[in-house]
């Protein structure tokens, strides 16, 4: 690690991406303050990608996948991690060039590396959403997803948005040339010559949450929580409040993920839970788009 002093820290990567997209016509918004399984769940995307109005936004989203926890022992897997999301509606011409320049802004020069666009069409059964696109690989490692949304909540997207998702930990590991996510340099304080690493912030949390997600979460409660938010969502839909109704879908989805991590949902049951969430999301989207008109 010859040039460790000049290496881009995790927070630098975020700053640079924010600056880059801010300079490219995006509004930098903030994450949704709920537990989501992917950056796409943000209402600014699920609801925002619907309708005619143009919308260019970017933000960092903390993301949770309870089943991916490994008690802090696996160098690549976390139950809590970060995504950098960009949504551009309508999809601009030659957006791929802009995207490649964004990589350069975080020290990945497409001329010096092997950047591949590998076919990877996207589908989210819970959101009733799908799109066509690619996973972007840099020297064999998946670093981004690049998707043209075709439908969300069962509704055809018109105009079509393009969504770019950067896997921040993967990017940082690649940029900093470290082999474990926990060795990522989060902040390099040059004045005090202090380095804050990913593990200083999240290792203990990964251990505790893995134990909680896999072993301790009270499934009886979780089943009830699911039922509560499901009912709340329906109530709110009856009152024509699709935005808070949708937030309850996000909660339902998280409880479902927790139940899944606890291994208490069978194959057939699993499908019925996914369908329940999807039909709620669909109703939220339908009412939201009606109001926009």
């Amino acid at each position, binding site marked *: 690690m010859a040039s460790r002093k000049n290496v881009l820290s995790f927070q630098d990567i975020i700053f640079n991406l924010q600056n880059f997209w801010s300079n490219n016509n995006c509004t930098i918004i903030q994450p949704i303050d709920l537990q989501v399984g992917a950056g796409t769940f943000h209402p600014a995307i699920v609801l925002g990608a619907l309708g005619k109005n143009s919308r260019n936004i970017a933000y960092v989203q903390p993301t949770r996948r309870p089943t991916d926890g490994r008690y802090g022992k696996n*160098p*690549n897997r976390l139950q809590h991690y970060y995504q950098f999301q960009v949504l551009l509606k*309508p*999809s*601009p*011409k*030659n957006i*791929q060039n802009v995207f*490649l320049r964004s990589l350069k802004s975080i020290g990945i020069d*497409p*001329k*010096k*590396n*092997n*950047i*591949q*666009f*590998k*076919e990877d*069409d996207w589908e989210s059964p819970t959101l009733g959403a799908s*799109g*066509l696109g*690619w996973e972007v690989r*840099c*020297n*064999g*490692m998946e670093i981004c997803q690049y998707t*043209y949304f*075709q439908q969300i909540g069962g509704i055809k*997207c*018109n*105009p*079509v948005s*393009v969504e770019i998702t950067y896997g921040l930990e993967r990017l940082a590991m*690649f940029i900093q040339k470290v*082999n474990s996510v926990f060795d990522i340099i989060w902040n390099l304080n040059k004045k005090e010559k202090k380095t804050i690493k990913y593990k200083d912030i999240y290792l203990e949390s990964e251990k505790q949450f893995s134990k909680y997600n896999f072993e301790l979460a009270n499934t009886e409660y979780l089943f009830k929580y699911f039922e509560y938010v499901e009912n709340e969502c329906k109530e709110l839909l009856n009152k024509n409040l699709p935005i808070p109704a949708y937030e309850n879908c996000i909660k339902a989805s998280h409880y479902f993920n927790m139940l899944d991590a606890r291994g208490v949902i069978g*194959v057939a049951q699993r499908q019925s839970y996914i369908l329940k969430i999807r039909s709620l999301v669909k109703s939220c989207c339908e009412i939201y788009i009606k109001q926009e008109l």
Partner: protein
Amino acid sequence: MSELFIELLSEEIPYWLQKNSVEQFKNKIIDVIIENNLSLSKKVNINSNFTPLRLIFSCSNLIKEQKSSIKEIKGPPVNAPENAIMGFLKKVGISKEKLEKKKINDKDYYFAKHQVIGKKSEEVIKNNLESIITTINWQKSMRWTHDSFKWGRPINNILFYFDNKFIPLDFLKTYSINNNSFTVSHKKIEKELKFKNFDQYKKKLTNSKVIIEQIGREEKIKKEINNFCKVKKIILKDEYNSLISLNAGLTEYPDALFGKVQKDYMSLPQEILEVVMINDQNFIPLFEKNNNLSPYFVIVGDFIEKKFQKDIVKDNEKVLEARFADAAFYWENDLKIKLESRKQLLSDIQFHKKLGTFDDKTKRMEFFALNLATQLNFQFNTNHLIQAVKLSKLDLTTGLVREFPELQGIIGGYIAEKEKKDKIICLSLKEQYLPKGPSDLCPESNLSILLSLSDKIDTLLGFFLIDEMPTSSKDPYALRRSALGILRIIIENNLKIELEKFFNNEIINKYNLQNTKNFEIKNLIIFLIDRFRFFLKSITKRQDVVNAFFVKKSFSSDFLTLYKKFIALNEFINKGEGKKIIELNKRALNIVIIEGKKMSINDFINKDLLQEEHEKILVDTLDKVKNKIKNEQEDFKSVLNTISCLYIPLNNFFDNVMVNVNDVKIKSNRLSILKKVLDTLKIYADFSKIQK
């Protein structure tokens, strides 16, 4: 003469869609050229190429302008109501006095002579281009900026050149697609390239690292790999040519780089290493001369300058190692639980809602396999067979198979080896899914055959029983592949079995299904015959011979015998005697068809009416031949030899016996002889369907 050339520049088109879409694109343009007479000679030089970013069509020797011509348009009858005539005048745009009259079937009609003024070729193509581009049929298509435009992937630019001139396309504006007169270089060079004709275009692209020919890219990769292999004394296996094509389809300027697997991981089962390399990364594994996996593998990059190669290889190796580490982790964990103690887990995995779990499937397979073994007179050890079937599906519960489903069977075999199970059992576990595709090997050991057959039969029969048969477009359970597998195993291992009899009630009852009322065994046999025809056609490339062979409606389901009979025919018709028989059959058929229109032809030959020596000989020979064809069940070569005995008497008959005589009785009798010739030959095959 003018040159036409079009480039559609897009974002990355997936490899599996490239070839088909460029073919469609090409054919649609050729249709326009032909329909509009834009080419005078048949010597148009057509080129179609593709890269992941480009579909390219070029063609020389087109005319600049269509010739003007006069076209005659038929109108209404002369006595038609006035408004019909007015309508016609309006349509053709001329006045009534210019109409001409012509008689058709005793009725006078108006005709308009219409001068078609030749259009410029560029206009003709331009006017058709929107429909050509938008009607390419993609198996998967998408919308992007503009809602009503659907295509495989977003188009960045469309370039249309005719007669060394860039021609703008107005319709692109509506779809917000660029219409620049230049193209772009390889992404890493970031240049705009200007040119006048296709030749310059190609040259400039080559100079800026774009090889537009798929085959050129493939050859570049192969050459670089072969050079490396020579140095390292290792080999590239032919079966990985498809991986080379895939990589060539993912790059505009492929550069082969070479990575090395760390020693620690080389102790993992070879198949695991291969699958991880290929499926995850499209890396191409290289082999030692003894066919063992070598530690070297190929990474195909897209234009990689020398100075960056080392770092890129290192990064790729790291990604691969992380995946190997995952696999090694699963492998170690999987070895901790004995195969036998996975039985409970297996009953949690559903095979199909109506067909039960994999545990249920295994129970049926055991019964089927024992039954098959008896019917096939196999020498086998009952304990081995029962053990192999019981173990066969247990590896579905392992972490490795969940992560790498294509390793099913192989992992079970490896675990069984580690558990010191009998070698023949381990081998059968590994081979139970063979053949996986049309070019894959079939199993050969008795145990492997029984395992593979009983598994495939269980799947095929099961889905037919619950009425989940494949349709022309959908085959979600890959039943065609199962059927082909069954047929190939039977044929390649010389197994005589009548499948229709095998699918008896005792077998069907094993599924414990309440409702099978839609099931008819006939449909399953028809499906198998259909696959069998497909198979025969694919190995002989002779659709005509296949059609000639399958003239009857029903067939025995002993596919080995059918196969032998077919192959004997295929060899026969390629020999001189066979060709002669085809010819005489045709001659006889012609006479029977022509005369059959004038009089009915009897099936019965009246021997008392035989006058000439040569007709007597022919009739005698016919009886012998018919007997032989009907009664010989095994030795089809000798049947066909007997058929060729017909040649001389039949030829003599044609040369010496008049069919068309005045005596109607004798004529009719001679036609009956010819008809019998045809009917007799048809018992084996319809020779009239065979082209030379």
